[in-house]
């Protein structure tokens, strides 16, 4: 067997649809459930720290791009950053939480938009962590010598799922027409966009490339019930005989099994589980906090509760906040796309120097998963 090759991210790209939408306009944009202002919205925004985001859907419901189109645009931007033609690409891994189709996979839709040429594709559907699943596939394909130019992309079109019609007439609204917090919170948290990275077995001739040191993805679904999900009602979500596909689309909609939902109580436990996995990586020497120059996490430090930060400090696991680079405030939480949009933003900021190490942390509350990627600038 041939030796494994080093792999470098030679291009990163982002695509954000339309102009930024501020907190004061966002509810107009998504629409008000039963015409009422959200009870939770302001608190959710304070908690998640988002001040502006992008939507591919206009207030009138028309759309500027599909999820696949946003992804294809991000791949084009990443290829341009790598100074490669799309025809150089031979492997495309695409990630999303909710693609344009149920079937076939997201990568097929992205490839169709991208054009270029026949190529190998792979689709990854999860939540935020799907980005790193796709990245790992692209990385290993180049590493094993199967492909010389691979792209990993991730995109979200969440706003489509946040329209009032997803909640009205369902068990997710109370008798006064108010949406349950499990549903409402995410409307104020997630937004649209896509990001991508191009990987090759050598750095690009000039400019920075990022050597991939590791990609680790750890699922704790063997122990946790769904924490962020769509497709099952709140109370019976662990029982898949009540999933939407089983009860049929109309009954599932009425039962509140279609909208995207989040369990906050469980989230607190899942956050501790993420911290545990991270500290285990630190303990094993897979991640060395003192060596990290830039930390990309799509959680804001202020949303991590103070005791988590002090726990990280007590256990030599904390990366000082001044090394955190985030796009949450300006560009929002774009689910799986966030990590690539953050990386493109970090590279464009000029903050990265040769020899710097970048740690990407991708927590996914979905069913308790967390992924890590360590990059070294060359």
């Amino acid at each position, binding site marked *: 067997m041939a030796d494994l090759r080093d792999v470098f991210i030679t291009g990163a790209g982002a695509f954000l649809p339309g102009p930024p939408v501020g907190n004061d306009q966002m509810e107009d944009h998504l629409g008000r459930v039963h015409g009422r202002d959200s009870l939770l919205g302001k608190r959710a925004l304070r908690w998640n720290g988002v001040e502006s985001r992008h939507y591919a859907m206009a207030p009138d419901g028309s759309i500027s791009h599909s999820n696949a189109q946003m992804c294809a645009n991000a791949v084009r931007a990443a290829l341009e950053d790598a100074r490669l033609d799309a025809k150089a690409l031979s492997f495309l891994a695409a990630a999303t939480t909710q693609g344009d189709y149920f079937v076939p996979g997201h990568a097929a839709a992205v490839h169709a938009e991208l054009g270029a040429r026949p190529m190998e594709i792979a689709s990854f559907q999860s939540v935020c962590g799907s980005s790193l699943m796709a990245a790992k596939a692209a990385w290993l394909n180049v590493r094993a010598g199967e492909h010389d130019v691979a792209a990993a992309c991730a995109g979200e079109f969440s706003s489509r799922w946040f329209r009032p019609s997803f909640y009205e007439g369902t068990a997710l609204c109370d008798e006064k027409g108010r949406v349950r917090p499990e549903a409402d919170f995410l409307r104020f948290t997630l937004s649209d966009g896509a990001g991508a990275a191009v990987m090759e077995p050598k750095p690009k001739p000039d400019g920075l490339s990022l050597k991939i040191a590791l990609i680790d993805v750890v699922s704790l679904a063997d122990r946790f019930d769904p924490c962020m999900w769509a497709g099952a009602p709140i109370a019976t979500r662990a029982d898949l005989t009540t999933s939407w596909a089983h009860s049929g689309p109309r009954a599932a909609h009425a039962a509140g099994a279609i909208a995207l939902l989040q369990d906050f109580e469980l989230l607190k436990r899942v956050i*501790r589980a993420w911290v*545990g*996995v991270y*500290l285990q990586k630190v303990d094993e020497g897979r991640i060395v906090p003192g060596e990290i120059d830039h930390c990309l996490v799509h959680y804001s430090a202020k949303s991590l509760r103070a005791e988590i930060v002090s726990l990280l400090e*007590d256990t*030599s696991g904390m990366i000082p906040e001044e090394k955190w680079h985030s796009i949450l405030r300006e560009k929002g939480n774009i689910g799986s796309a966030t990590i690539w949009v953050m990386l493109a933003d970090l590279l464009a900021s000029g903050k990265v120097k040769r020899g710097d190490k970048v740690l990407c942390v991708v927590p996914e509350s979905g069913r308790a998963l967390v992924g890590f990627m360590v990059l070294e600038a060359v």
Partner: protein
Amino acid sequence: MSDDVADVLRKLTVVFTEFEGRLEQMPLLRKLTRGRFELADYQAFLIGLRQQVKDGALWMSRAASNIDEAHLELRSQLMRHAVTEHRDFRLLEADYVATGGALETIQSAEKNVGSEALSAWMFHRASQPNPFDLLGAMWIIEGLGSIKAKEWGRAAQAALNLPDEAVRFLLYHGDNDVEHIGEFKQMLAMVLPDAVLAQRIVKTARVTARLYALQIEEITA
């Protein structure tokens, strides 16, 4: 804070989060998180917890009695700790009675298989000279008090519509514990650095967590 203390705290945190994941899978706690918790489950839970709570101050006292003169401060801390907690099982009994249970029932209940194992283990370790590794056991048990108890108490109260006086043990524990981590770090600093002991503390935490989980696994309504 020294690196030695931070290293042990990190390993202990990993043990605790693994333990939490294991608890998440326990049938009794699955009932609680999946909306199938009944009064009989809560009563069985209190009975199951009582054994270890009752023994807790006793093994701590025994451990204190085995600490030598060179570590008097640690001995004092353990003794204070034991005094603070040694009547907590009475609160638990009162909670049980407030749910409509009979005092004799909880007082006469036998230890389950897991409680037997946990108790035997704790007293065995506490009987060793300078049993500093029990700090690992305290990390697990204190962690349950400060992190899990309140969560369980609130969820049980909400699920069963219980009056406040039926969930005092679980809720009271949660309130009492913020300063414990500071105290815990001080205790670790009293016995570290010591590479062999550091490993032993983590091992004792791991065994304690496993046996505690067994105790909960064995609770049946």
